[in-house]
């Protein structure tokens, strides 16, 4: 069978390039934008996901993990007394001010715990032992902080709220949604840095359940004992933290609009291009009908053209998105494109191109075979 669809596409190479470019643009935009957003969302909950706490006690209506409010640290005792709780510890996550050697001041999200390794925080550390944080005014910085704070190494000192703290190691991939760098220090040291807010207080209580304990029952017990706090499972807390950025801030809407506009550009370019091509070959399609072909024979050509444009455009778009990944990483950002999303974009690209060719179908349906007699 002569591949009329492909032959027509390749016959007008410039138009084919324009069509494919439109598709590739939309695919790249969607993959990169959504990939970046998913990367940021991953940051928004990565510490919750990596920490091995089964339950988190937070202050009432805390929206996300970075914005917790303090409550009495003594609540920890009430939690520890609940049957089914194997271990519970206080955790402070707090914005502190950091003075840089340059004289500039930056914010840092500081995690304070007594025993980090027990809770798998941080999950990748190098250059020092996390257990040493308990010994005094010591801090671990995440590698990503260099972008904001400049170069540092183990043995350097930095001022946190006026106190000199020694850097004794680095962490990796501990990131926040806002890209504010994260540091780790001892729980009591962090309390003492901001005594007005944090004296005798904590921001979260991490809970590890005993083997066989019923999550729902333990959660209900803790809620009874801490009626002015919230108790979340790891998954609900992670989802809540992500949803905050998605819904409350309008970032989700902004992302949706960007993706929508990207797709719209793709649809318009493909529709315009296929329609122009259809009109240029209108008489040839009428000839197909004059030779005894029907609408399905012509639709087949249009569908195949749309699918070819989608496949080639998707391949180029996906390759461009993959090529953008190192540049994105160089900017200290993460791009996450899960397999399912890749498939969704692939299917979406095919549907987008088929949808874009609908205008052409309508026009072709009206093509009369008698047109072939006109000069």
């Amino acid at each position, binding site marked *: 069978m002569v591949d009329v669809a492909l032959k027509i596409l390749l016959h007008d190479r410039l138009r084919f390039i324009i069509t494919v470019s439109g598709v590739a643009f939309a695919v790249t935009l969607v993959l990169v934008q959504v990939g970046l957003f998913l990367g940021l969302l991953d940051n928004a909950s990565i510490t919750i996901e990596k920490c091995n706490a089964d339950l988190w006690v937070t202050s009432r209506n805390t929206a996300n993990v970075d914005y917790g409010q303090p409550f009495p640290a003594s609540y920890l005792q009430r939690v520890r007394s609940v049957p089914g709780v194997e271990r519970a510890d206080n955790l402070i996550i707090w914005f502190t001010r950091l003075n840089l050697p340059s004289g500039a001041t930056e914010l840092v999200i500081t995690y304070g715990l007594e025993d980090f390794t027990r809770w798998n925080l941080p999950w990748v550390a190098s250059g020092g032992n996390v257990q040493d944080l308990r010994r005094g005014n010591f801090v671990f910085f995440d590698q990503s902080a260099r972008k904001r704070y400049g170069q540092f190494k183990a043995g350097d000192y930095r001022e946190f709220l006026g106190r000199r703290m020694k850097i004794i190691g680095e962490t990796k991939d501990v990131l926040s949604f806002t890209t504010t760098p994260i540091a780790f220090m001892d729980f009591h040291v962090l309390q003492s840095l901001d005594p007005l807010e944090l004296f005798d207080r904590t921001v979260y209580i991490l809970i590890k359940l005993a083997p066989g304990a019923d999550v729902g029952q333990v959660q209900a017990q803790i809620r009874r004992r801490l009626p002015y706090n919230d108790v979340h499972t790891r998954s609900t807390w992670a989802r809540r933290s992500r949803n905050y950025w998605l819904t409350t801030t309008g970032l989700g809407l902004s992302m949706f609009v960007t993706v929508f506009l990207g797709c719209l550009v793709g649809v318009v370019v493909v529709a315009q291009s296929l329609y122009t091509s259809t009109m240029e070959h209108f008489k040839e399609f009428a000839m197909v009908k*004059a030779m005894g072909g*029907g609408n399905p024979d012509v639709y087949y050509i249009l569908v195949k053209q749309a699918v070819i444009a989608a496949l080639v455009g998707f391949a180029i778009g996906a390759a461009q998105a993959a090529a953008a990944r190192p540049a994105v990483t160089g900017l200290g950002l993460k791009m996450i494109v899960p397999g399912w999303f890749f498939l969704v974009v692939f299917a979406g690209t095919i549907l987008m191109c088929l949808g874009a060719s609908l205008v052409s179908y309508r026009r072709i349906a009206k093509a009369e075979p008698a047109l072939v007699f006109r*000069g």
Partner: protein
Amino acid sequence: MNATQPEPVLRAEGVCKDFRDGRDTISVLKGISLTLTPGEAVVLEGPSGSGKTTLLSILGCILTATSGEVFIKGQRVDASKPGRLAALRRDCIGFVFQQFNLFGALTAQENVEYAINLKGASGSRARKEAAKWIDRVGLAERRHFLPQDLSGGQKQRVAIARALAGPSRIILADEPTANLDFHTGRIVLELFRQLAKEHQRALLIVTHDPRVRPITDRTLFLKDGILTDATSEST
């Protein structure tokens, strides 16, 4: 029907065609009757606007008559539904046009092969048959040329090969030499006639071109919607 005469492959009886123009009705064809037998070549002449192309469209199952009957291979087709008419065009009729109407993106041979594909054959069978017809019209050296790289005469040869390829027993040609110079037109016509006769195809050529008469068996003349046999005038 005379027993010695071959069965007509195309027969029209009292075909009329009216078009509405606002409140007016214009009768373009007024009771046309004609027959075409296999291997026969007939030329249809007439002034511009006399209804030649309309008649060709009705005989080619592209338009339907207002009244009258059309038979193809003995079967009445004038009251058929669009799908049946398309099937008749596919299986029984080949067209040749003044404007060639070739696919610009397909080579000479692919243009013929695609027509064969539409008629139901595919793969190497269609390719071989297309190659055979391209050879028959003398374009073996140019089989892989696109229409834009062929001369007018060569394009018309491709169109002739496309019309003759496959099972079509009736070939309808609308001004096939109008876009060709005198010499080329003559060569193309002779080739057309020879191949149609050789393969027992009934050929109806609508034209103004006086070169066509000598190569045909009969001449029909259409004027004001009325068809007359003008064969005697041409002999």
